[in-house]
């Protein structure tokens, strides 16, 4: 207790703990509490407060899955923003278009993986086309670039409505991804002493795993490769990168391809887990906006943290305060802006 009582500013005096250590301790404590909540058999009073253990753990798992999806969408958004300083408000449309393309390819060929690949590839190409034909023409004018993306999103939403109408589609997942996974989490103990284990759809676990793999892959690409080095340099100082002989336009095109492709990929994956319908573009645009505002613009780690916070808040809100779920998301955003306007991992500019 005495450790926590120390003011964090004492880090300079040498004695006591640094603020970083204190935060680490708080984090460990929180992790321990969560681990206990997930794995222990709940006493009755806890069940009374939090409805039931099954509801609580399911909300957390759903939140994690949703966070994975949000991360996939928002990471492209934040990369594009970080490098090019324009807000791609057509990002939600890219997500929805990816989902529709995934649906078409999957239902025609019968191969889900082909649909996922098509969603990524087609959207990556569209991203490059947008970068070359639209954004390059308006270079240096961030506001106009943003306004143009609004125009594109309007036209895109309307064209998609014309082609796929207003119906709701569900992308069929392959058989090897169907079914449920029994997790080693005991939700309750029956009166005869047998434990009830939590089951969870396998597909959602795969979505989460895919998001983690892609997140790690992105991190590696940004931090360990030459292209990543250029992108990071571009985020910090675009003009200087250009002056040191790097073809900035090629870097921009790569970032746009990866960002748009990830949005398309997320569209197919998300369209298989949830559904594809008009209006989803706005939903995922809002999600990316909030995730990036909370996490910090231009930071992949920030996008991961933001996605985790927003995904969990949304699902926990859905279970415990159904009509105020959106407000919870909103409160997180306002608190972040009030405490740290540049976002959790954002750099002050």
């Amino acid at each position, binding site marked *: 207790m005495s450790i926590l009582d120390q003011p964090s500013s004492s880090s300079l005096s040498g004695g006591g703990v640094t603020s970083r250590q204190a935060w680490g301790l708080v984090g460990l404590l929180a992790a321990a509490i969560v681990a206990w909540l997930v794995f222990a058999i709940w006493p009755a009073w806890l069940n009374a407060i939090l409805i039931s253990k099954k509801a609580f753990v399911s909300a957390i798992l759903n939140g994690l899955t949703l966070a994975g999806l949000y991360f996939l969408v928002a990471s492209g958004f934040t990369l594009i923003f970080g490098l090019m*300083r*324009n*807000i791609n*408000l057509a990002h939600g449309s890219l997500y929805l278009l990816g989902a529709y393309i995934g649906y078409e390819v999957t239902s025609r060929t019968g191969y889900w993986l082909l649909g996922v690949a098509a969603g990524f590839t087609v959207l990556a190409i569209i991203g490059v086309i947008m970068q070359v034909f639209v954004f390059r*023409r*308006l270079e240096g*004018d*961030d*506001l*106009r670039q*943003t*306004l*143009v993306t*609004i*125009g*594109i999103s*309007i*036209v895109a*939403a*309307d*064209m998609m*409505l*014309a082609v796929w109408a207003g119906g709701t589609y569900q992308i069929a997942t392959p058989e090897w991804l169907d079914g449920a996974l029994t997790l080693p989490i005991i939700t309750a103990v029956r009166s005869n002493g047998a434990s009830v284990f939590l089951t969870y759809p396998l597909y959602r676990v795969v979505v989460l795993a895919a998001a983690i793999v892609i997140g790690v892959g992105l991190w590696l690409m940004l931090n360990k490769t030459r292209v990543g080095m250029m992108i990071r340099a571009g985020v910090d100082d675009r003009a200087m990168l250009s002056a040191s002989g790097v073809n900035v336009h090629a870097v921009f095109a790569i970032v746009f391809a990866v960002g748009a492709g990830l949005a398309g990929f997320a569209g197919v994956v998300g369209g298989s887990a949830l559904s594809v319908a008009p209006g989803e573009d*706005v939903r995922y*645009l*809002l999600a990316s*906006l*909030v995730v*990036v*505002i909370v996490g910090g*613009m231009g930071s992949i780690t920030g996008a991961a943290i933001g996605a985790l916070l927003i995904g969990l808040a949304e699902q926990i809100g859905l279970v415990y305060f*159904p*009509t*105020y*779920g*959106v*407000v919870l*998301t*909103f409160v997180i*955003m*306002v608190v972040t*802006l*009030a405490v740290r*306007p*540049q976002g959790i991992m954002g750099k002050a500019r």
Partner: protein
Amino acid sequence: MSLTTIADGAVPQQNWLDKIGAGHFILGTALLLYPLLASDFFLTQIAGYSMIFGVLALSLMLLAGYGGMLSLAQITVAGIAAYAVAILGSNNSNVLGFGWPWWIAVPFAVAAAAVSSALIGWISVRTEGIYTLMITLAIATATFYFAQQNYAIFNGHSGYAGIHAPVFWGIDWRDPKPFYYLCLGLAMLSYAAVLYGSRSTFGMTLQAIRDNPRRMGALGYHVTAHKVFAWFLAGILAGLAGVLLVWFNGRVSPGTIGVDVAIDILIIAVIGGLRHPIGPFVGAIVVILMQTFAIDIVGAERFNTLIGLVFLAIVFVSPDGILGLWGRIKPHLAQESLRAGP
């Protein structure tokens, strides 16, 4: 400052026509006489509706043009006023409806809108430029989803219906002609107020802050307070427009404050031009006319494609909207007229 006063004093007697400007005078007279010619449809659905959206876009123009803060939450602010009128006044949705008379409900509604606008401003001025657009869009979208899900205050998906414009002095103010004059009155007042405000000390300070916040801060001006006050003023305009909007529609639902409408307001302001307060009204007329008559050209379904393409064209060709286009053509016309003969 002293230079301008000398310049003003140098003109011996400025008559009232010069002060208002001949263009304004002709435009005002034409608008006052417009009901003599126009049918009821053109009076309310086109002119009245354009003026309501013009005032909404004007509140955005005030923020963006003078303050450099591009907001997508203006319809949200107007929606707060509209919902407040429905809740404080009377509606036939059997939810809330305090039944207050309009002359109490309307000031409260506008005040609520102005205060929430100031709050939105206070949140968003913590960041700058393009971030403001992002944060206000997030606020607008979150409010839309909240209104849709919340039944206790917003009556969920269906919203409120059966809201009537007041009847006093023996006039039903929702009848075409009175409603037109109501809209015209608000539009003229807010236009004059913004034009006057832009030349006032506060307006000048705001524009200086837009151009260089750091320098103004160093000079001792409270940058945040000025910006938040601009949001408050814009909130009053948007709130008044919201009251007229709910009287016009007779109902308010989450669809009224949807993201598409929020973007429509931005489109109106950008198409019209953000440099002068007349821009939003020009944009509103163009967009409303397109909205009404595009059905005959491209069909009702593909209207959004048309407006999106027009918007894209304007952004690409003329960053200052139609006003900018006019500003670019005018010098050429003037030169043409100077040339004697062919």
